[in-house]
């Protein structure tokens, strides 16, 4: 059995799976249930000034019969009185001292407010802080949340205030509502943050009700942009994560990865691209805390299979595999192959290639089953047919290098090689 425990800047947890700062971590009752289910840690829902929430708060994107492919919310930071949250944090830490208790913070925009809040939380037993510079709704209008994260100068100033006071590790959570997370990430690291986490939610409209003509979620005939999360945002999160893991400044601090993680596989992908722990919210909100069981077991089995003894053995291992386009090997070529024994003659590869790609699949009429064959000379190896094929391993991509040696775009141009393939 592999060891899946995690030590994030001294914050220990029996596994790298934390619940993200969100409704599931707003109360003692929820967090106790989470710890009983096996979660490694929580980031307690953001504490700050007293706020008031609206109804409704959530909406989702359903796709192809699956509910909640994407999810958004317009909920604010914790709307419970600070003293109740602090009291409950103390109680939970006492009951589960082996779990990570990180507290998310969003104080008003002045040094004193931050210092006061930090002191109260440390006294309550917090093991670390996560600075919420990402919340994209409600708090931004008050100059907080994403309004801080979108401006590196302001973010730097707030981190400096925090670092003056905090005696426990500080993680700064970044907003994805920017063209690049690197400038703010760099500013925060330069200001002394001990770690970064990303992504927070993405501003969104999930849909419009075709009867009332009001977008979702509905609040008395109106809606607002909500923060988007869930499986749909995972690819965006992975991209932002990679940029932080590759930048020479930001890569110096550990990262907690967030964004659409639902399974152990998602978690491993985030860790391969540089996350030391991962945070989950939407998947738990959809299925309950029990999903952590398979996350632990799946991670363990995968590590055993690959021979990794601890999570540190593989964290970041894929970061260097994302490169620049001009460094890709132009002589690499592969073509699709259809396994006739597995083919169910659905024609999905054919119509996708014929209508939208390179007309590289031929159709031989049959009644009722047509036969589909790859025209190797016309196949550019784009993967589309393989992606749309409903049968596992029916279409495979077979390597057919153009030439044995590596050559990239820059070299190609320098050597004056022909550009037009057609």
């Amino acid at each position, binding site marked *: 059995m592999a060891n899946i425990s995690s030590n994030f800047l001294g914050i220990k947890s029996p596994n790298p799976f934390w619940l993200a700062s969100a409704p599931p971590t707003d109360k003692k009752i929820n967090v106790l249930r989470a710890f009983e289910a096996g979660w490694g840690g929580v980031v307690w829902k953001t504490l700050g000034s007293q706020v008031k929430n609206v109804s409704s708060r959530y909406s989702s994107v359903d796709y*192809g019969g699956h509910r909640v492919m994407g999810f958004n919310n317009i909920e604010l930071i914790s709307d419970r009185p600070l003293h109740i949250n602090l009291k409950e944090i103390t109680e939970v830490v006492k009951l589960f001292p082996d779990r990570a208790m990180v507290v998310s913070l969003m104080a008003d925009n002045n040094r004193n407010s931050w210092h006061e809040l930090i002191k109260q939380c440390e006294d309550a037993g917090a093991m670390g802080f996560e600075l919420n510079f990402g919340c994209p709704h409600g708090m931004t209008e008050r100059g907080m949340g994403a309004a801080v994260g979108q401006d590196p100068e302001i973010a730097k100033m707030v981190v400096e205030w925090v670092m003056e006071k905090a005696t426990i590790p500080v993680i700064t959570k970044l907003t994805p509502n920017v063209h690049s997370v690197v400038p703010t990430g760099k500013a925060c690291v330069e200001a002394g943050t001990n770690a970064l986490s990303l992504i927070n939610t993405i501003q969104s409209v999930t849909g419009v009700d075709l009867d009332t003509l009001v977008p979702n979620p509905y609040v008395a005939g109106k809606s607002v942009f909500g923060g988007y999360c869930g499986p749909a945002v995972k690819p965006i999160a992975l991209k932002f994560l990679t940029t932080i893991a590759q930048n020479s400044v930001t890569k110096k601090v550990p990262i907690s990865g967030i964004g659409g993680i639902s399974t152990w596989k998602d978690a491993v992908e985030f860790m391969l691209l540089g996350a030391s722990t991962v945070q989950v919210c939407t998947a738990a909100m959809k299925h309950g805390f029990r999903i952590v069981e398979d996350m632990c077991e799946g991670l363990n089995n995968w590590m055993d299979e690959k021979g990794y003894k601890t999570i540190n053995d593989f964290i970041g291992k894929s970061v260097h595999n994302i490169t620049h386009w001009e460094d890709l090997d132009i002589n690499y070529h592969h073509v699709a192959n259809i396994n006739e024994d597995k083919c169910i003659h659905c*024609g999905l590869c054919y119509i996708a290639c014929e209508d939208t790609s390179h007309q590289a699949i031929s159709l031989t009429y049959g009644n009722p089953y047509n036969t589909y064959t790859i025209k190797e000379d016309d196949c550019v190896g784009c993967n589309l047919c393989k992606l749309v094929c409903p049968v596992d391993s029916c279409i495979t991509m077979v390597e057919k290098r153009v030439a044995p040696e590596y050559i990239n775009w820059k070299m190609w141009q320098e050597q004056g090689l022909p550009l037009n393939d057609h």
Partner: protein
Amino acid sequence: MIKNNRLTTEQYAKNFSDIHPPFETKDAALTEANRCLFCYDAPCTKACPTSIDVPKFIKQIATENVKGSAHTIFVSNIMGAGCSKVCPVEKLCEGACVYNLMEETPIHIAKLQRYSTEIAIQNNWQLFERKKSTGKKVAIVGAGPAGLSCAHSLSREGVDVTIYEKESKGGGLMTYGIAAYKVTPQFCEDEVNYVLGIGGIEIKYNQALGKDFSLDDLQKKYDAVYLAFGVGLARQLDIPGENLQGVEDAISFIYNLRTNHFSNIAVGEKVAVIGMGMTAIDAATQAKRLGAKEVTMVYRRTQEEMPCTEHEFEIAKLDGCRIIWLAAPKEIKGDNGKVTQLLCDVMQLGEPDASGRRSPKPTGKTFTLDVDMVIKAAGQMPYNELIDTYNIQHSKYKLTINNSATNIKSVFAGGDCVNGGKEVVDASQAGKDGASAILNYLFHAKPQSE
């Protein structure tokens, strides 16, 4: 003893309730619709005689465009609602579904088709607009699936249609010749009314060709005639005892069942059903469900050659019908004019015949079954007399057509009277073909030189 009223009202209701119940909820339909892979040049569509664009109509259920879905079905097959209940889909669309090749349950195409079409009929969505009347008039003989399909296609193009129907209701064998647990009389009536909803179609009921009117009458009064009078009479066994009391043909047995209350239908204690086609299955299962103690199906070939589908065969077996293969009726014996026994030859299979099936030959051995009722379901006979009277060209009394046209000027034909008796969906396609040939004849054909 043959008698009626064998069961309680509740038992009748249970025995004759819908054998393929619909999706109970929209969610259930959506879940199934989302399972469809949306194949290109889909095998299910190719396997449908009317070429319904199955992936498209299923996708439309998934996108909650039920009206569009119903239109996609009806544009290919105006009898699509009935077909969703009576089609032998396991040998048509569902049998071709690519999921079969993955050893997965095929998409429940019929059930999804029923979902859309039932909603369309319930709401009386008229999805086709009839073109302005062209002044052309066409007579159709028979308000069965072929006649109705032809009428609808013609009316859409602005042709005024009159259907002559010998029965008092439309729908043909849908209404009169199919097991009651597949379609209800109410459904058949609703379907006919839905088809007529486009306007421009009149049905004259209780009008039989050769009795109440002649083909010449129609030729004089109309610009064209479409014959869709089907096949009617049950094939005789031509064995001794066929006139005994207790011998009935499956068509009239089912006809009675479909036109009376179940409790009025008399059925024997021990029933033999001759044949193994779809109608034989219907007759056997209905006899059992009316309260017969024993139903034995007698077929002269083996399971390999049986004309019914596996699915239908399963229904008969689940209903507790006994099947004797390689048995051919030789004589029906009686006492006091009433059936008491069925004597059968034991057969064996010889060389393949013209149909490619190995033909049965008597072995010389016989056996007898104690029965008080014999239902004959050995196929249907065409209306030979009618066909002879009007000198319509035929082959073994199946009308000969060339692109839906008979040998008689302005007279077209399709459906069972041409193919000898196939599925509702085949008749519906024949009606479409007939309409297209008639439209071509009415509007595009060059005038013939005198």
